[in-house]
């Protein structure tokens, strides 16, 4: 390949590069979420293959409801954290992310409770799909909590600049995705 040198092209300005980087990161994030949603869809399918729309009368809907409400609130605090960091307010970001972490941990531990004290036969078709679905949500939540923890620690140590803010926002958005998925699975398990 012959290399031709030309003087006509200049590098894009820094803000253009930042904009391109943002598009890249958020575009890849959408692809990532697309892939991450597949296990949830699969469990919904499996549930209807195995147990159709059956919900046992002994299902503990109260614990499920409390956990769902906590998850919903944690999504709101995560959203508040994203808004704060977009405005450059690192301390508000950390406070809101801290709240999200607390609520997320409580709701995830309640899932562990649901999982441990399931008031129905684990060997039934509903039981096996319930345990596996709750297990999936809990494991995914743990990955989200780890991400939030890392993001909060990073914000504390490194503060915020334009390149770091993208990562901080993504951590919050990932948690919102997980919260929405957990709510959908809650409805699917208890009301479908």
């Amino acid at each position: 390949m012959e290399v031709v040198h030309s003087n006509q092209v200049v590098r894009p300005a820094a803000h253009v590069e930042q904009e391109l980087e943002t598009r890249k990161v958020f575009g890849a994030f959408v692809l990532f979420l697309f892939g991450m949603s597949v296990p949830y869809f699969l469990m919904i399918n499996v549930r209807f293959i195995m147990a159709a729309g059956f919900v046992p009368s002994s299902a503990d809907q109260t614990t499920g409801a409390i956990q769902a409400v906590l998850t919903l609130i944690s999504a709101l605090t995560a959203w508040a954290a994203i808004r704060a960091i977009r405005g450059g307010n690192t301390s508000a970001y950390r406070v809101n992310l801290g709240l999200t972490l607390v609520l997320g941990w409580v709701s995830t531990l309640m899932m562990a409770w649901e999982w441990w004290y399931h008031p129905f036969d684990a060997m039934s078709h509903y039981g096996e799909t319930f345990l596996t679905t709750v297990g999936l949500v809990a494991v995914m939540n743990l990955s989200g909590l780890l991400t939030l923890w890392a993001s909060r620690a990073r914000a504390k140590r490194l503060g915020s600049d334009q390149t770091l803010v993208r990562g901080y926002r993504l951590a919050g958005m990932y948690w919102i995705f997980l919260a929405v998925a957990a709510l959908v699975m809650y409805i699917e398990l208890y009301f479908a």
Partner: protein
Amino acid sequence: MASVITETVPQQSRRQPLPPVVRGLIWATIGFLVVNVLMSYVLDPLAGHPFITNSSVVLGWFAAVVGWLLGVGAWEEIVLPSFGILDRSVVTGTGWRQYFAMSLNHKVVGIQYLVASTGGFFIAGLAAMLMRLELMSPTMWLFPYPGQYLTTVGIHGTIMMFSVGTVALVGGLGNYLIPQMIGSNRSAFPKVSSISVWLVPVGILTVAFSPLLGQWTTGWRGYEPLAQNDANGILFYYLGVFALTMSSFLVSLNLTATILFKRTKGMTWNRIPMFAWGMLVVSLLNIIWLPEIQMTFVLGLLDRLVPLPFFTAVGSNLTYLELFWLFGHPEVYIVVLPALALWMEIMPVMVRKPLFAREWGVIGVIFVMLLSGFVWAHHMFTNMTYAEELPFSFFTEMISIPTGLAYMVVIGTIWKSNFKLTVPSLLILMSMFNFLIGGMTGVFNADPVVDLQLHDTFWVVGHFHFTIIGGMVFTWIAAMYYWLPKFSGRTYNPKLGVLGAIWIFIGFDGAFSLMFLVGMEGMNRWVPVYPSYLQPLNIAISIFAFILGAGFLFNLLHIWWAMKSGPKVEANPWKSKSLEWMTESNPLAENFPVEPVVISGTYDYDVDGVAAIIPNPAG
């Protein structure tokens, strides 16, 4: 859009006391032992009886993988920076040491993938040789028990599909070539590929050592509830494939983002190289289907560990097959689509003529991707009613149309050209011939009436090997010869290259075309014993298989020799217009000192001039 983003380089750095791979092995061992002891002595009510239980080995395996990844460099490159701690340790090394650690250089990662895939190819190939040795006699003589033969079949298929078929072209050539082809200095997320490659050896070794936990007779599909009858080797099947598919998933995310967002100026959608199109559609397939099969394997794992009754006789015992093939047939196109794209990538260079009907080539790979999700149930015709079979039969036959577009593009490109027979072009023609046989025999399998007669016979074995080896492996070898000057600055010996190509063509076509015959005469799959009237054909197949195995080894040694000692060549010996040939051959060098600008199509061989220019850094 390519942009050189400088890494944050610590002012002072200290070396790791241990090489990363050694540290990874130590941390993996510690992780396994700690978690296994915790599970089998502390948490297990029957403490220490035995030392390794199903649960302890599974959780110990996860701990070992985490330890391995952290040890090879994820601790400094990913974990600590994620928490805002900028460690000053150096784990990447310099020179050849880069190949034994996490590397942010996409070319180093590509070579790591290629080496790992090649290792998997020969491990799985050795298993195939053992199978063929066994089948030279109609009675058991090599393996003491049928389960050992079937375990060998499973190891062969699993490693071939998940560490070679899915990985070599995407993880290997994709990582190495795609950033260069689109004019970028790096992939979109270098850390993602740098860590994902280290899951490949984990996956290969986990599957290869699965007999340590006992036999598994399910083959590469891991069929439940069949697996419930086996010992525990299936656990390592699930875990190994989980590691391999996770690697492919991460690479696919990275490659998709790279192609979408890292293209240089002028690399518009109608100029994107065909190989990049192939990578894009395959990556999208991976992003959809790999999480699906991973979750299915988690359910299979839970069936054995808890145990839950998902896929057992009291559960829904066809559901596993449905969930598996929902992934399983797109998997075939995950393997083959990059090969079709490579045909269209390499042939215009060989014939010095613009790519014929390029748009139809792109449409072809996109429609193969779209239709690949509509054909899966043809693997289950024996379990379906005729009414259910019809749509899957229809779509299976329809998918041959977009597949045929790749043939049309390549043949149209060769038509009335100054075709030069080189080793890469010879291997691609062989690949096209073999894949055509695989595709045409697939039409018979797509017809339920015929399929019910051929199901589970060696006809099917012949069919899918003609598609996978014929389509993908021949093209992989063609690509290795073609880009050899890019990898090393050296080239191959043409006579040895032609000899190697003819050698594997004879071995391959001899072995697998006879499988059609032996299948139609009644040779079943999954059995190490068979009626004695089939022995002569089986002996002939085995002899051709050994010739094929030796041929692959010959090509490997030839490529290795060429990379080390082959004749030196100029930077762009094929006179290609593609951007990767503008870069230095040294894999450790930066691709483009300055972002290139694409000014015309990279297949425009009917006009003089270059496809891209390098702007003067001085502005």
